[in-house]
């Protein structure tokens, strides 16, 4: 194949690295961008640069944020004593959308997985313990909201163990049946979990 534009080719190569983008899609995006107005493309480029340069991490919860501490950690309306532990920032968004939780978060940035060479020291467990020991935070409950896969479970076990001798309630979100579905269509694993963690009516 003969390449007529090295520059175009380079853009396609970069786009191919995006998640869920194959070569075909990358080509389409590159051609699309080429056809757009300068203004639009520069704005997009600037947004990407800002994303990397200006987006900060909250030093308390480690969520992505424009300011440090983030708006959740600095809000006076949120309970300070309850921390909800999640795997990554998108989980914070998901839980925030429910409006159900009024405490603060702690973003671990991953879960323990020896197969991927991720041990407890590679995620922010130490930072969580620092917050627990921080007297100003007055932590009295930790809610574990990790994925119910074996890595999430292992991480929950590990954190629970570390918190054992602290005067803190450790809870986890329930396993259950998604709203709006019928029992018939639920996979048996979920259903049997829901059964074993049923609560009184």
């Amino acid at each position, binding site marked *: 194949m003969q390449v007529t534009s090295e520059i175009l080719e380079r853009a396609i190569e970069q786009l191919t690295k995006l998640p869920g983008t194959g070569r075909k899609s990358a080509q389409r995006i590159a051609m699309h961008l080429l056809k757009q107005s300068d203004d639009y493309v520069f704005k997009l480029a600037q947004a990407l640069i800002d994303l990397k340069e200006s987006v900060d991490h909250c030093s308390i919860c480690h969520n992505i944020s424009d300011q440090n501490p983030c708006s959740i950690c600095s809000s006076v309306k949120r309970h300070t004593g309850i921390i909800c532990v999640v795997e990554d920032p998108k989980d914070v968004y998901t839980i925030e959308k429910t409006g159900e939780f009024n405490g603060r978060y702690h973003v671990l940035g991953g879960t323990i997985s*020896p*197969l991927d060479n991720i041990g407890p020291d590679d995620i922010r467990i130490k930072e969580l313990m620092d917050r627990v020991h921080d007297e100003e935070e007055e932590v009295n409950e930790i809610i574990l909201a990790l994925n119910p896969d074996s890595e999430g479970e292992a991480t929950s076990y590990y954190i629970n163990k570390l918190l054992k001798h602290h005067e803190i309630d450790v809870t986890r979100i329930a396993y259950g049946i998604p709203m709006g579905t019928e029992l018939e269509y639920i996979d*048996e694993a979920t259903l049997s979990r829901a059964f074993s963690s049923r609560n009184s009516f």
Partner: protein
Amino acid sequence: MHITWLKLQNFRNHTEREVEWAPHLNVVTGPNGAGKTNLIDAIHYLCMSRSFVANSDRYVVHEDQSFFILKGLFHGSIRSEFEVTCSYSKGEGKKVFVNDSPLERLSDLIGRVPVVVLCPEDRKLTSEGPSERRSFIDAFISQINPPYLQDLIDYRKVRRQRNNLLQEFQYDRSTKEAYLEPWDQQLVDAGARIVAKRNQVIKQFQEYLHQQYDMITGLKHRTFLEYQTFCEPSSDPETIRDRYWDKLEEYREKELEREVTIVGPHRDEIVFYLDDKELRRYGSQGQHRLFALALKLAQLFYFTDELDDLPIFLLDDVFGDLDPHKIEVLLNALIDHAGQIFVTSANPIPFEEYVNFDGEKNRRWQIEEGVLERRD
């Protein structure tokens, strides 16, 4: 449960084929290599998402093609009618759809259409190593108890994670033990449930096996399955959990030294006995074959009793090497079974004396040089 319609595309030597099956007995005859087994293997795919013959999906695709598609229409008592599609392509791998909606995991398919297979490969069950018997019991229980399959999947994953941790050299001893704990916990949880379930099912299965062996041979030999695991077996998961923790403690040193998970159901064995003698060591050729036959028939009757829907029974090329008396016994058992049955054979089987091939309840096919023809 029965399949009324099957469509194959690029599946082994079938480039394009549609078959309408009878609700009871279906007999396919034809020379070796004509594609008889592939027809019923396609049905197995739609029940278990894999072949009962080939080890890899790649070998199942028609020579010159890069994909295969199977479709089947099933009728059952709970869901009156549903369509299962199984597709495979070299790029995208295997996918399963029920009524055109994709299943998130292939394992979600298993148990929808219970199936029992009797085939020449069954001799591995009685003569080869323990992994053959573990996969038999796993496929067995998974079909009647879906949470068991989930436990198997979880267990395998946890064991891989744990082995990886055991091989890690950068941690000191106490760190490693602290890091192992969350994995031990999950290993014991899933592992104990697996052991308890295996023990429970094997216990209930003994009587079925005994009956079938009696029926086929007419001899009063005593069959026995001995379940061997890392501790004294029990059907209570809690009891196993305690014993599992003890054993794990006992083998801690060894596991750290050999850097692999030693204690667990992944090393279980089921020993087959005939009159207190180990079949694998002392059984004759004939005894091996009859034991395997009895195992599968017993599975069929166990499923029939345990499940709401009758299992589909696939018999691949098993009539060839049975003596006339055993053929008669087997045929009678098949005719008594109310569920759907598929039989392949290179030679015509003397079914006429027992079955009326009316084209409604029972159908016959002949396959030769790529042509499938109904003969009733």
